[in-house]
């Protein structure tokens, strides 16, 4: 065993190094973490084992199970996942068990203190009771967590996805369930045994338990590995399902649009429009669950209105919204007026590039600006063909206690400013 200088990143974490170990590297790991020569830890440990007539060995096995192995089977990438993600996954699972173990030990020590102090009924009652309570709690928790997640299923109806939430929880549930059952059964046996109800059968039961425990110790590593393999297989299956779902969606939408665009390649406007429409649809699909629906968010309602006008008039509209507000009557009037202003801009300035829509939204009041770079006109003498402006925009805003201002100059484009309530600055 050489005194290999550990790398600086490894020095701060509690990991077992297979190259620096006698049995499993637990002592070396503890020594490295504390900055002590592993040999001292090992000697101290052996002394502890002798002093506690073997009980300290339990701690060693616990360390073996909980302390991850450096650069081992779970190190680096997990099937092509980015290293950071793999690392997060690696540290999350054992952390839960560590916490559980810690809480368990703390409870145990608390109980032992109570026992020493004499605040106690009898060993025959308390210990089984505690075991049974822990087991029952685990089982109850699990049965509650088992209920499926409906929104997960409803998210992409028609797609070939299974509810993913259940998959993910499956293995943890299995462990927890098995553990809970073992605790309750153990408690019952302990209660019966300590009250001498079992009598002669106790010896038989003890033998069976001892044999089972031995067998479990032998099989534990294999079961452990099996569980891990199952988990990674499941992760792989989920990934391939997601791929299939994505492929199906891309085929139905993006590939169709690309085909259409090739057919219409001689009409640049149509192509641009198709592309913008597809872009919007794809974004909506990708981010749908992160966004408020148009019925609740004024910003979304404005964006939806802009998308409609864009599709109907084939003019690109760029919406920038700051803040948001709930959708009420006034907000609906604002959206309707803004839509009319966008339609006007699209009609009268169809070839003047993008229409810019800027909205500052707040619960006390909102302001929307619609700007085009078209030919412009003299607002003093609104042409008769612009009745929509006078009635659908200015009139509508005034009915709801707001106002609409039109700024336009020949050659400079037009900007319609809509204000409702008292927008905070």
């Amino acid at each position, binding site marked *: 065993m050489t005194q290999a200088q550990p790398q600086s990143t490894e020095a701060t974490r509690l990991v077992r190094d297979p190259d620096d170990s006698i049995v499993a590297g637990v002592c070396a790991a503890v020594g490295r973490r504390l900055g002590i020569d592993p040999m001292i830890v090992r000697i101290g440990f052996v002394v502890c084992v002798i002093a506690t007539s073997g009980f300290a060995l339990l701690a060693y096995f616990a360390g073996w199970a909980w302390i991850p192995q450096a650069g081992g089977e779970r190190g680096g990438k997990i099937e092509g996942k980015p290293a950071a993600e793999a690392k997060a996954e690696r540290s999350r699972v054992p952390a839960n068990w560590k916490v559980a173990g810690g809480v368990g030990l703390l409870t145990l020590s608390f109980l032992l203190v109570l026992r020493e102090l004499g605040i106690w009924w009898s060993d025959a009652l308390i210990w089984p009771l505690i075991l049974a309570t822990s087991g029952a709690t685990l089982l109850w928790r699990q049965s509650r967590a088992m209920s499926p997640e409906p929104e997960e299923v409803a998210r992409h109806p028609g797609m070939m996805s299974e509810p993913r939430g259940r998959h993910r929880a499956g293995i943890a549930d299995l462990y927890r369930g098995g553990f809970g059952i073992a605790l309750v059964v153990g408690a019952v046996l302990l209660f019966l045994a300590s009250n001498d109800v079992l009598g002669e059968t106790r010896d038989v039961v003890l033998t069976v338990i001892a044999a089972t425990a031995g067998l479990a110790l032998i099989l534990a590593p294999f079961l452990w590995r099996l569980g891990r393999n199952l988990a990674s297989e499941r992760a792989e299956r989920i990934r391939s399902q997601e791929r299939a779902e994505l492929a199906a969606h891309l085929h139905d939408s993006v590939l169709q649009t690309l085909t259409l665009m090739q057919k219409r390649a001689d009409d640049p406007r149509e192509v641009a429009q198709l592309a913008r429409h597809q872009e919007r649809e794809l*974004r909506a699909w990708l*981010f749908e669950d*992160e*966004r408020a629906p148009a019925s609740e968010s004024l*910003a979304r309602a404005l*964006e939806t209105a802009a998308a409609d006008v864009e599709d109907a008039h084939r003019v*690109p509209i*760029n919406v*920038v*919204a*700051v*803040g948001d507000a709930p959708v009420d009557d006034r907000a609906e009037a604002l959206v309707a007026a803004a839509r009319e202003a966008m339609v006007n801009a699209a009609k009268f300035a169809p070839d003047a590039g*993008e229409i*810019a829509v*800027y909205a*500052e939204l707040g619960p006390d009041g909102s302001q929307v*600006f619609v*700007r085009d770079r078209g030919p412009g006109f003299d607002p003093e003498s609104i042409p008769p063909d612009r009745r929509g402006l006078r009635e659908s925009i200015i009139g509508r805003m005034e009915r709801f206690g707001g106002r609409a201002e039109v700024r336009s100059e020949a050659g400079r484009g037009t*900007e319609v400013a809509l204000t409702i309530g008292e927008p905070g*600055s």
Partner: protein
Amino acid sequence: MSGGKPTVVIVDDHAIFRSGVRAELEGLVEVLGEAGTVEEAVRVIGEAHPEVVLLDVHMPGGGGVEVIRRVAETAPAQRFLALSVSDAAEDVIAVIRAGARGYVTKTISGPDLADAIRRVRDGDAVFSPRLAGFVLDAFAGQMSEAEVDPELDQLTMREREVLRLIARGYLYKEIALELGISAKTVEAHVSAVLRKLQLSNRHELSRWAVERKLVD
């Protein structure tokens, strides 16, 4: 202010987009090189020493932020212009805070992009309407009394006005006309906003970026 065609390196993980940009900028700027990964970008920028790096916000391996961080270790004066389709507010703000001198969307036309590159080359800041919107949103939160540095943590009324006009689709010279100031003063306001954005360690700003779910 140096004349002539600006020299540029294009960093984007999509080859088809790189060649598209290259074609659009033909004759307007001098493209010194291209890179498709963070690694490659750091190497190419180090070798070619372009005046401006056109930088994609989203790339595998840390994205534009990582490129800026690594290049800044050896060439802190390197100028970056961020370019993105995704427009996720937190990503855009992160790239600006890392040191990019502007942000434009990928739908920008060739001549407009060349103009933006020239302005970044000359040390100005380039704000698209969307970036102006993001910044206004980021600084819109309530100001508590115990702010760390009011100088950095708030925008002046004028800066706010300028940003709002950018968001409304006004060009710099139109903003100058509207506010009765010179185009240079408009530039100065925008640069000041950029500096505040980069220097401010106002915790709301990062919290805003994390909490914000709006993606468009």
